[in-house]
């Protein structure tokens, strides 16, 4: 077991939650994006987390297993003047629920803070251990 594994574990949690925040920001920013680099409609992105285990079975934190794009039907809006409108005058917008993004945002923020708390606790424990045998 490596010495600073505790901190690495917390760091993996921080990185994972940060990525989730990035994806939420991307989803909200692209709530009306009808055209991406591939020329298609923007699709809501979510991170899939998986627990990271050492060969011994000891927990080593979390990793992002995949970033998945939601494959649900788009949200159709009638706007014939829009350049991306179809023959019937309907525009396909990404099916992003702002309320869901906001609640995910809160969850990710709180989880991030929890990881910071654990990291700080581990740090103070290390410092305390350095005092063993001192005066």
């Amino acid at each position, binding site marked *: *077991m490596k010495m600073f594994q505790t901190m690495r574990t917390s760091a993996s949690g921080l990185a994972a939650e940060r990525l989730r925040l990035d994806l939420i920001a991307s989803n909200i920013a692209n709530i009306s994006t009808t055209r991406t680099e591939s020329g298609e409609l923007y699709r809501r992105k979510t991170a899939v987390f998986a627990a990271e285990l050492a060969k011994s079975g*000891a*927990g080593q*934190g979390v990793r992002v297993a995949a970033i998945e794009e939601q494959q649900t039907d788009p949200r159709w809006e009638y706007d014939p003047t829009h350049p991306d409108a179809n023959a019937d005058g309907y525009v396909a917008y990404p099916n992003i629920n702002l309320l869901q993004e906001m609640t995910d945002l809160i969850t990710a923020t709180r989880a991030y803070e929890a990881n910071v708390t654990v990291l700080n*606790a*581990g740090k103070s*424990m290390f410092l305390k251990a350095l005092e*063993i*045998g001192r005066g």
Partner: protein
Amino acid sequence: MNKLLNDRTSLVLQLALNAAAERQRVTAHNVANVNTPQFKRQVVLFEEKLKQALQEPELPLARTHERHLDNIPRTLGHEVITDNSTSMRTDGNNVDIEREMVLLSMNQLHFNAVTQALNNRYSIFRYVIQEGRR
């Protein structure tokens, strides 16, 4: 000399310190996976195992000579198990963040207490080495 620094108290304190460090690592793992579907929290068992070991009428190693191995087995220590018994959410995750935070604070205080005890122990040794002089 071996007996002086590796007495029973110091050994148990070292084991407790190891267990507290491991518990910190496991808590970090649980908190990092608070949003991982199907994740089950890990738990460190130490106090239970220590109690069990102390209650056993005869410790595993019989000692018939003073140079035999010490009575506290070196293998005595913590054990990490996975708590599969509960589910907190519909995604099968059972990390209760409040509980983990409470365990974190408790573990931190416990770690500090053990460190303090070890320090006291060593300051007694120092006192003896210095023949009581300050």
